[in-house]
């Protein structure tokens, strides 16, 4: 049995790790972008980003003041877990006070802020059952600047692949410098409206440089990345070669009369952290290099 207080402490560790330190793949991509840029303004933006990453790690401070709202992905293996959802909610509230995180979660209409990042259906928790014998929890704190640039199009089959590409292109142009580029594009194609949007966000959980297992989709990821970087929006929308660090696409079968496309834009501060908890008390932080941790 994995106890509730243990799950809670791992959730707090995950939120701290995610908000302070970027995953290894994102840091590497940002360093490569800095090397690639030649003009003064984009280079200056990436220099500030790299300095900020270093300073955040050194001081143990959240690297961006928008510490997001919390969508939590759980993979529940064949293990017994006590009070999983309560543990996550309490972990978010306690981490908000202790790290501290910015209290972002408000009622959508009254805008009332409980100050804990916990409210009705927030944190939002997805639970997927798996066959392994561990519990895996991923947190993805995501700011509103990039989330507000999300878009969904319910295209029809006649629009085809060209329509999909056109919609993604227009979404990136419209977003411009607002979602803190260079960012990552999460794209969901197919399913229903809600499934496409969910896939778009899940695509962002995949590390940079990984490709969709379907070669056709992988080709589309690479084609979009190279082409869209030709737009010249650049870091912070001030011009330059790097608008995107990556394009990740997830696909689901859809209705014969539908072609949903969803885009979830991620900022350069692409924060995520994953931990695997084993019944014997071992915890592995798999998103960050050197992520072994003993019994907590």
């Amino acid at each position, binding site marked *: 049995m994995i106890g509730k207080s243990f799950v809670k402490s791992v959730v707090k560790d995950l939120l701290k790790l995610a908000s302070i330190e970027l995953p290894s793949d994102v840091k590497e991509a940002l360093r490569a972008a800095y090397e690639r840029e030649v003009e003064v303004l984009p280079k200056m933006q990436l220099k500030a980003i790299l300095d900020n990453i270093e*300073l*955040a790690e050194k001081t143990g401070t*959240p690297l961006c003041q928008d510490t997001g709202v919390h969508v939590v992905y759980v993979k529940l293996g064949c293990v017994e877990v006590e009070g999983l959802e309560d543990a996550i909610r309490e972990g978010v509230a306690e981490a908000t006070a202790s790290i501290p995180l910015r*209290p972002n979660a408000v009622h959508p209409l009254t805008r009332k802020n409980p100050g804990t990042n916990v409210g009705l259906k927030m944190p939002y928790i997805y639970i997927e059952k798996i066959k392994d014998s561990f519990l895996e929890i991923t947190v993805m704190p995501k700011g509103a*600047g990039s989330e507000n640039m999300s878009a969904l199009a319910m295209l029809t089959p006649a629009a085809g692949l060209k329509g999909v590409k056109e919609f993604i292109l227009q979404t990136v142009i419209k977003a411009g410098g607002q979602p803190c580029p260079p960012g990552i594009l999460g794209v969901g194609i197919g399913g229903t409206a809600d499934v496409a949007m969910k896939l778009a966000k899940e695509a962002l959980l995949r590390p940079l440089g990984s490709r969709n297992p379907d070669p056709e989709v992988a080709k589309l990821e690479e084609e979009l990345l190279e082409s869209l970087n030709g737009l010249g929006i650049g870091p912070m*929308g001030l011009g330059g070669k790097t608008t995107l660090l990556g394009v990740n696409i997830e696909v689901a079968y859809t209705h014969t009369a539908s072609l949903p496309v969803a885009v979830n834009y991620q900022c350069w501060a692409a924060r995520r952290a994953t931990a695997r908890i084993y019944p014997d008390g071992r915890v592995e932080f798999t998103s960050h290099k050197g992520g072994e941790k003993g019994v907590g």
Partner: protein
Amino acid sequence: MAEYRLTTPLEEKTARELTVGDVVYLSGIIYTARDEAHIHILEDLRKGREVNIPLKGAVIYHCGPILKREDGGWKVIAAGPTTSSRMNPLEPEFIEKMGIKGVIGKGGMSKQVGEALAKHGAVYFSFTGGAAVLAANRIKAVKGVYYEELGMAEAVWVLEVKEFGPLIVGMDAKGNSLYEKVELEVGRNLAKVRHMLGI
């Protein structure tokens, strides 16, 4: 492209001298103001209530910081800029009524805001989005807070800064906008990008 070290409050003359692409480091006092602060201050003005924040010549910062109580005061933990475009509908009136001479944010602002900057002699500064620890490092003290009831992110925090930057002049008082320049560039690149995508 010149580099300046300026002190707040800004004089209209100083603001008018700046050109897009210039790099500026600011010292003095800046005031955070985002969605709710804009809405409430303008509403108070419309209702004839007194707004006693000394914003004449001030530089405002589109920022919802993270702060921590420390030794009876406040300490800024992280304070990067927020997306400025959300304030587009409110900023022209805010600049005019409050006498703002500088706006710090990210992502740029609308043509209407650009016109207000030109009319009243003010500038828009771009600070690297997400560079919140870098920003906090240049904030030396929290001198006060207005509208605290709006919550940590939305309150107006009075921040004493030293060499706050690098800020890029993104929109100047001469009607220039770096964002419009990039938009034109994107427009020019569009045919090539479409061709690459086969659309």
